């Protein structure tokens, strides 16, 4: 797991601060999330049940919401559906103890943007929430991604670094594309597996690490500066300069 350019955790330069709403009925879990988000430089508000959460979400201007599925007074899916029907497009990450494919599909269909099963690692949650941040999603529309001297053209499927052409396999291209779209953000192995391979399970071996290291070989070999960093205990981050 120890890759060439390892950046110690705790010194990760996270994105700009976000305003996050946590709707979770488990008091301890909610407090923990609030504390952890605050430590990561964000502001987090907590609602202890669905009704309160709905009211807060409807009134406040949040960047991302983290909503538990099973809650007293109003369940998470109903809160999301209610918000969506009122034109609220704030990205939502659903937290759930239910974790099968069907549950995920139901959750996403109800208007959720991402789905995370309990128990989860906070680093995973944080990475996903930062990727969901609506102010970061503007990149979807861009056709050319640039990170430092690395450049990826989504239309011509070409990649070059410092004006030197780099040949990638289709999957490697999609991997790099995802990493570049979320440059400067931590991307976990599960996120890569979900978004690049469309699989939602944990492979027994860390297959993703090997794919990333191959990609790293192609985009870093022959260049003096590392660009694809391993964030220990979390995942990877593409970062120039």
């Amino acid at each position, binding site marked *: 797991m120890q890759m060439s350019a390892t950046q110690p955790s705790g010194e990760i330069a996270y994105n700009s601060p976000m305003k996050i709403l946590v709707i979770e009925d488990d008091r301890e879990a909610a407090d923990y999330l609030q504390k952890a988000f605050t430590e990561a430089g964000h502001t987090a508000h907590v609602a202890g049940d669905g009704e309160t959460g709905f009211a807060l979400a409807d009134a406040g201007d949040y960047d991302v919401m983290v909503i538990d599925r099973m809650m007293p007074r109003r369940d998470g899916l109903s809160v999301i559906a209610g918000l969506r029907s009122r034109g609220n497009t704030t990205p939502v990450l659903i937290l759930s103890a239910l974790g099968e494919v069907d549950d995920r599909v139901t959750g996403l269909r109800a208007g959720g943007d991402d789905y995370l099963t309990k128990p989860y690692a906070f680093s995973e949650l944080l990475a996903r929430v930062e990727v969901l941040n609506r102010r970061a999603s503007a990149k979807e529309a861009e056709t050319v991604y640039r990170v430092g001297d690395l450049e990826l053209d989504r239309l011509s499927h070409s990649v070059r670094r410092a004006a030197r052409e780099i040949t990638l396999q289709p999957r490697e291209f999609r991997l790099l594309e995802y990493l570049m779209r979320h440059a400067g953000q931590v991307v976990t192995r599960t996120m890569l597996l979900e978004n690049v391979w469309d*699989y939602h399970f944990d492979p*027994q071996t860390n297959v993703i690490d090997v794919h990333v290291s191959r990609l790293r070989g192609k985009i870093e070999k022959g260049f003096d500066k590392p660009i694809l960093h391993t964030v220990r205990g979390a995942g990877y981050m593409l970062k120039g300069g």
Partner: protein
Amino acid sequence: MALSVPAIMKTTAARLSALYLLLFALCAVALVFYMTSLSARMLTAQTQDTINDEVLGLARAYQRGGLPVLVRVVEARSRQPGANLYLIADANGQILTGNVQSLEPGVLETEGWTSSPFSYQRFGEGELERLRNLPAEQGSTQPEQSDAQAQGEKGHNAIALVLRLPNQMIMLVGRDLGEPERFRAVIRRALMLALGMMGLGGLLIWFFVGRAALKRIDSVSEASRRIMGGDLSGRLPVTGVGDEFDRLSENLNAMLARIATLNEGLKQVSDNIAHDLKTPLTRLRNRAEATLSGKHKTSDYRQALEGTIAESDQLIKTFNAILMISRLEAGYSSENTNRVDLAEAVRDVVELYEPVAEEAGVSLEADVREATFVNGNRELIGQALSNIVDNAIKYSTGASAQPAVRVALERVGAGVRLSVADNGHGIPDDGDRARATERFVRLEKSRSQPGSGLGLSLAKAVMTFHNGRLDLLPGNPGLFVVMSFPAREDH
């Protein structure tokens, strides 16, 4: 029967019997009333016809010879046995001739048909009555006698036609109603008898049919109580007759068997959780404790915490896998299946594992040609196949000069066979091979390899979910894992 009346009425059989009885009785009563009134009307009409005929004859006699002839004819007819009633009276109601001794007052004042039956007494009636009752007293039944007695006391009832002759004299021609009265009595008796029989029949039906059913139900509920009491191996009694009760019992027994299987599975899971999660949890705890005691550098703490996180992650993975296997085995929901191209699934997984295999020095190749569709869940198939490929790479690494894993897809009859072959050491022992797909089973040789021991169990559960099967066969050398999918139902 030690049941009290309210308790008996609580049983369905008794309630049904009572209801049927009531319905039948109502029907019988209605039918009898209808028939009685119909026959009474017919009898009355008949009586009136007879009287009309008589009057017609008498009128002709009167026309022929006036009053004297009429009187003679009346007298003659009066004397005949079982004659109708004849009476001629003067304008004051003084009886001149005929066979009637006395009448209910007011009858002679009517004109035409008497409005209702009236009572009367014939000449010499006392004697006649006694004579008629003699044989009845000896042989006939009780009610008949009392009927005759009641009639004797009241006199007889009759209807009659009252006419005014031209000379202001009154003529009455009537007919005794004894016959219709007797008829009514017979009907009444028949009704009583029918009701009595019905009551008895109802009781018998309830006793034999209802009570038998009740007994069967009682035995079923007794057995259920026993089973609820914790004896899950208990089963409901089946008589072998093949009736509704047997079918019910058979179905409930099948349900119990299913519950027992699920229960067994649950027990096994909890045993396994207890066994296989306890070990890493203890390790986790010990590591934290060891780190806390004694003086350490900050970097040591960091390392211990990182180890803790890694271990927790592994625990979470194991836990998720256990949950998933249980859900798959419990039937999962089949809503999330659709057309899956196995060729694509194979290519995806091989592509995913190709760098890992290359790093391990294992050649991984796929023998896939055309698109092959099955009904299924891409995600689950991908997971099962990746677990198998993962294992194959792991156990063939370094096992031979040219370790190789080969994934092949072929049609076998109507079904599809997806196989993963490696040339590693394989699992030579048949028993071991069979056990390898059980939960948490990690064969001795694999203990040194990382893994939860759930990979093949999960793959097997996935195949069960797809109505297929997972077979571990001896390769030559190595292991030959076969995932068999059933034919696709095209709908």
